[in-house]
């Protein structure tokens, strides 16, 4: 069995990133789009931590923690927007959320 190297972790992170991008671009339900964004952020974090391990210091891990904090804030605000929108238009379908002003 091939020993596990940094490249293995980067490949996993890239796979998660691509899955997240597919989710953002193709799903109809806004909540699932937001969850795919969380997948993307997790892939980025995994990348950061893998490189931090490769270099042997903590800067990557600290950056990953700040990215996590950022993701939490963004999820809260995004879901708030979604709820406010749902209250007005009664839909969570990206195909129907297509008016800048109504």
């Amino acid at each position: 069995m091939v020993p596990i190297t940094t490249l293995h972790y980067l490949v996993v992170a890239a796979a998660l990133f691509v899955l997240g991008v597919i989710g953002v671009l193709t799903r109809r339900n806004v909540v699932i789009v937001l969850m795919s964004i969380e997948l993307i952020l997790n892939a980025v974090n995994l990348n950061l931590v893998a490189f931090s391990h490769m270099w042997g210091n903590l800067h990557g891990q600290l950056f990953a923690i700040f990215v996590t904090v950022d993701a939490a804030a963004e999820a809260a605000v995004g879901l708030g927007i979604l709820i406010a929108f749902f209250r007005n238009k009664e839909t969570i379908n990206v195909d129907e959320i297509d008016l800048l002003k109504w």
Partner: protein
Amino acid sequence: MNPILNPAMNSALSGGAPVATPFFFYMLSGLAVIGGILVITRRNAVHSALALIVTLLSVAGLYLMLYAPFVAGVQIIVYAGGIMVLFLFVIMLVNIERASKDRRFNRIWPIGLVAACTLMGLFVSAFVKGRALFPDRGMALSEGSNTQEIAKALYGEVNRFGQYTFGQYTFAFEIASLLLLVAILGAVIMTKKKI
């Protein structure tokens, strides 16, 4: 010697090392990827949320394998225990029957798929061509012969997190707290019925 391709510097079996590291890596990364696939393909939003929780927990496991226990702990507390509860709340608040009978993918899904495949091609080419570019250090720190001592040295770095956070990265820390304050205010104001 390129650490990526040199087995001797990466062997997990030379003396007191964690057993079956490749097994755990493949299991955790397999779980993460399967969870990711389930997130983007399930019709039911709660199923997607549960699959995302599985992904988040396996990524936390991968962090533990990368000797980053603090990041793993923060991941479990913030992501799996906080953000996913928020998502489940919102799914239950906006759950309408129509959504589960709708089609899963939106109008422009071929374009999205093409874009994602382009991105995947970019990644693959970056990894294949750039493998030799990774610098020649680092992995020896992890899977060497004295893994227990190295693990103790690396795991002891939780203290250094505090030193970094309030030393070099104080400004980023303060900005992050301001960001969270703005997010809280924004979420509260946006969900009020009358501002």
